[in-house]
C-alpha cells in the first residue's frame, strides 16, 4: 500500500519551500509529487526538485472544487506508469494543494474513491502556517481555519521573522490534537512527514477549547464501549453533523476487545475503518475521542454516546445473561 500525504496551508505559508527541503532527504527519494496550482501560470512545480517523471502539476483549477476527478485520474495514471516501469517505483505520494483549497474533499476522495482504493491510502494531512501572517489569515479566511482543523501535523514556518506565542495558542485552540513542528527557513526534520497508521493515535488533551465557530474537545470515557455503540455513534454524528464534524480521532476501549483498542479517524461524514492496535500504547485504557467541530456542542456528543451505550447495553445478550445470573 502506498501512502498519500496531503500537504496544505494557506497562500504563501511555505508549503513548496518545505516540500523542496523534504524531497532532498534520502528517505524521500522515492516520492511522487502532485502539485495543484490555482492559476494559469504554474510556478511551484519548477521550484520543487523531484524526478520530472514523478512530478505532476494540476493547474487552472482547485482540487477541492472541480478537479477531484482529475486527481483520481492522475493518481491512477501515476500507478499505471509505475507498474510498467515508466517511472521509478515510488513508495509514497505527496499532494501539495493550492493555498486556497479546502482539504476535506481531497481527503474524502483519497479515503473513498474505488478507483484508487487497494493501491493508495491516505496517510495524513500536514498544514503549514506562516508565523508572520498566520494570525491575520486565520482571522480572515475560513479556509485557513479548516486547513488547520483538519491537520494531523502543523508546521510553523517563518518563525525567525515573528513571535509565535500567540499563534501557537490559537493553533492549540483550533486543533488540540495536532503536534506543531517548527521549520527553520524551510528546513525540518523529515520525520515530521512520517505519519499515519497507529502513529496517529490522538494525543491526550483533557481541556476543551473554542475559537469562534470551531471547537475542539475531548470525550473521555472510563467504561468500555460496546462495538455496536461505536458504529451507531459514528453514524449518528455523520447524520446530524455532516460537514460540521470537521475531524474526529480517537482511541476507544471496546468492550468486546479489551486488550486491543480501536483507533478511529473521520473527516466530516467519512470514516476510516477502525484500526485495531496490538496493545494499549500506555497504561491509560480510557476511551479518548478528540472532536473538532463547527458549532456542535460537546454536551450533545457526550449525551449521545452515553444514551447509545445505555441502549445497547440494555439489549445486549451478554448483559442480559449477566443480569439473569
Amino acid at each position: 500500500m502506498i501512502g498519500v500525504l496531503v500537504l496544505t496551508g494557506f497562500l504563501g505559508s511555505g508549503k513548496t519551500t518545505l516540500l523542496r527541503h523534504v524531497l532532498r532527504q534520502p528517505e524521500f527519494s522515492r516520492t511522487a509529487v502532485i502539485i495543484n496550482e490555482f492559476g494559469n501560470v504554474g510556478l511551484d512545480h519548477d521550484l520543487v526538485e523531484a524526478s520530472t517523471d514523478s512530478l505532476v502539476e494540476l493547474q487552472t483549477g482547485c482540487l477541492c472544487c472541480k478537479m477531484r476527478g482529475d486527481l483520481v485520474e492522475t493518481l491512477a495514471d501515476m500507478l499505471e506508469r509505475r507498474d510498467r516501469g515508466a517511472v521509478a517505483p515510488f513508495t509514497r505520494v505527496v499532494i501539495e494543494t493550492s493555498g486556497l483549497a479546502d482539504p476535506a474533499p481531497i481527503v474524502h476522495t483519497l479515503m473513498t474513491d474505488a478507483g484508487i482504493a487497494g493501491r493508495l491510502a491516505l496517510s495524513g494531512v500536514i498544514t503549514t502556517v506562516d508565523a508572520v501572517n498566520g494570525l491575520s489569515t486565520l482571522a480572515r479566511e475560513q479556509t485557513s481555519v479548516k486547513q488547520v482543523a483538519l491537520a494531523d501535523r502543523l508546521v510553523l514556518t517563518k518563525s525567525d521573522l515573528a513571535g509565535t506565542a500567540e499563534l501557537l495558542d490559537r493553533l492549540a485552540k483550533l486543533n488540540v490534537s495536532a503536534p506543531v513542528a517548527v521549520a527553520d527557513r524551510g528546513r525540518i526534520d523529515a520525520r515530521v512527514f512520517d505519519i499515519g497508521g497507529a502513529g496517529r493515535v490522538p494525543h491526550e488533551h483533557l481541556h476543551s477549547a473554542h475559537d469562534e465557530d470551531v471547537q475542539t474537545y475531548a470525550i473521555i470515557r472510563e467504561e468500555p464501549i460496546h462495538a455496536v455503540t461505536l458504529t451507531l455513534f459514528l453514524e449518528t454524528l455523520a447524520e446530524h453533523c455532516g460537514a460540521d464534524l470537521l475531524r474526529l480521532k480517537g482511541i476507544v476501549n471496546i468492550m468486546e476487545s479489551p486488550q486491543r483498542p480501536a483507533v478511529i479517524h473521520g473527516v466530516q461524514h467519512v470514516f476510516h475503518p477502525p484500526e485495531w492496535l496490538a496493545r494499549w500504547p500506555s497504561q491509560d485504557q480510557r476511551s479518548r475521542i478528540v472532536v473538532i467541530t463547527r458549532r456542535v456542542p460537546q454536551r450533545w456528543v457526550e449525551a449521545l454516546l452515553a444514551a447509545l451505550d445505555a441502549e445497547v447495553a440494555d439489549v445486549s445478550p451478554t448483559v442480559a445473561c449477566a443480569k439473569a445470573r
Partner: protein
Amino acid sequence: MREISDLARELLAQSLAAWALSGRVCAQSNGAILVCCKGMEIRIEAAAPGVPFRWMLSVDGRKRGALSLPAVLRQVRAALDPGYAMSRVRIAALPPVQQ
C-alpha cells in the same frame, strides 16, 4: 446507572440545542418524554412489549415506531427541522497507512 429514559431525555434536550431549535423537553408522569418545539408536540415512550420497536413516537397525534435512539433522533429532527439533509456515513476502503 441512569435510566435509559433519563439519558434519552437529556439527549433530546441537547439535540434541540445542537440543532439551534428553541423548545423544551420534559418527562411525563407515565415515563414518556414530551418534546415541545415550533408549535409541535412530540411524545416519545417505550414501546409496548411484543411490538417490533423499542420506542413509539407520536408526532401531533400520528404514531410511529422507532427501533433505536438514532431512529428516534432521525424522526424528531425530520419533524422539527424538515429542511435538514442528513449525511450518510461513508467508510473508507482502508485504515490510514503508516509512511
